[in-house]
């Protein structure tokens, strides 16, 4: 599904933020990406979402070399990965329904189909009935679940979550992680960047550890 081959990334001002990273994620695999802050988790995340390009090496996602795709193709790549963020990145002036529907609207689905899929996604994250609410009126945990619903509504083969529980208490974090497990069980590849070691250690999944831009454990 996702393959990193000797990937390095350098910012002109900072120097190397990722050094010689190689790993592979198989379809339907769930793994964690961890490390101290500044270890390069976010940079790795940005490389996968093609928000940045790597300086050396190769990244292959779903059979496509991400170094070689044009800017024009980036949106289509992003449609096959569900992105989840620490700050949820929801549109505050739109309803929950509209937020979750956004990827479908972008992909050009018709209204009836959008409605059906959004309800299914909200049902999965336990927010059915809150379609007409605005994100502001929801709790942090609920907002993150809206973010997750938006990420999975398009049924992408891979979910990428960047510190999804960073702003949530342990109880809510556990619930969110449980949601990710459910997606993994239906065959979605899941990669979660997190520094919540205690939570990660309780779950029995593969852990990729970054230290100063290098992959030290896998």
């Amino acid at each position, binding site marked *: 599904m996702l393959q990193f081959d000797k990937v390095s990334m350098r910012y002109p001002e900072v120097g190397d933020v990722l050094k010689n990273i190689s790993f592979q994620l198989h379809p339907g695999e769930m793994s964690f990406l961890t490390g101290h802050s500044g270890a390069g988790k976010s940079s790795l995340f940005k490389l996968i979402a093609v928000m940045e390009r790597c300086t050396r090496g190769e990244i292959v996602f*779903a*059979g496509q070399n991400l170094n070689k795709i044009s800017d024009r193709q980036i949106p289509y790549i992003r449609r096959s990965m569900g992105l989840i963020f620490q700050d949820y990145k929801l549109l505050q002036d739109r309803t929950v329904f509209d937020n979750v529907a956004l990827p479908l609207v972008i992909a050009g689905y018709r209204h009836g*189909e959008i409605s059906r899929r959004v309800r299914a996604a909200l049902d999965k994250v336990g927010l059915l009935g809150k379609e007409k609410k605005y994100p502001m009126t929801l709790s942090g945990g609920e907002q993150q679940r809206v973010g997750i619903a938006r990420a999975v509504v*398009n049924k992408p083969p891979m979910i990428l979550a960047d510190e999804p529980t960073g702003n949530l208490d342990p109880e809510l974090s556990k619930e969110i992680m449980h949601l990710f497990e459910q997606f993994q069980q239906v065959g979605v590849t899941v990669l979660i960047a997190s520094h919540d070691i205690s939570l990660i250690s309780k779950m029995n999944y593969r852990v990729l550890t970054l230290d100063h831009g290098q992959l030290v454990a896998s």
Partner: protein
Amino acid sequence: MRKRPRHQQKQEGRQTRISGGGFIDRLKAYRDLHAHALFSSLGRLISSRFASVMTIVVLAIGISLASGFYILVKNLQQLAGNLESSNQISLFLKDDVSDINAKKFSENLKKNPDVQEVKFISKEQALKEFETYSGFGSAVKALEKNPLPIVVQVIPKNSFDDEAVTQNLFEHFKLVPEVDLAQMDMQWVKRLQSIVEVARRGVQLLSGLLGIGVLFITANTIRLELHNRREEVVIAKLVGATNGFIQRPFLYSGFWLGFFSGVAAWFIVTFTALVLKQPIEKLSGLYDGSFHVVFLDFFETFAMLSISALLGMVGSWIVVHFQLRQLKPE
């Protein structure tokens, strides 16, 4: 678009099937997207009423200046066009030529094969006309002696086909001893036409400048809107929106701004023309003219609205196109 690898095409095929239809369905979805962008951008203009009105007023003034000048030139052209028929030569006779001699002179002129018509205006007639039309009647009465000369108006034969005939006659009359001053009205028409031509060019240049102004004002307004909605744009990009999808509502915003400015400009210009119409036609009446103020016809109104809307869209496109490329999601 470049050909995408097979697995991705397959995946899109799967999506299409799931969405319950083929090409027609996608086309309908595309139409829905456009309709949505068209009306949501209108909704946003209305919801930020104050800012929209300010922009539209500025744009409307620019557009109404350009079209106002256009109407001015159009009217001048009409005026010059009317005068084209007055292709005559006026001969102002010397003061010492008596009425009888003058009459004889004009009778002789009629025998000239190049002359079509001769009109004799005596000093008394001239004075009468002057009193009636100039508005200086009482002032003229105060004069002891009639200061006006005898005038003989000559209309040359075939003058429209052959300017040389008129020119020859004119040169000939200049040398006639009875004639004090020969004046070719055509010269004045030509001068006026040249002035109109200069004005027309000037207005074209000015309209171009004003158009560029409209373009950049729209561009700047859209730039601000883009800035305000940056968060939204970033999120849309992250969930896979193409630049085309993101710029669509902004293009429609530009369209509405331009279109409404065009409509407002039409009202400004119409109002101005209505205010000026009566006094101008009264003035024309005083000069014994039948000048009617012409206004934008249907086609010109349509063109004005189209150009305004187009300028709005182009202005918006310039900004969105270049700024979206720079705008990276991080």
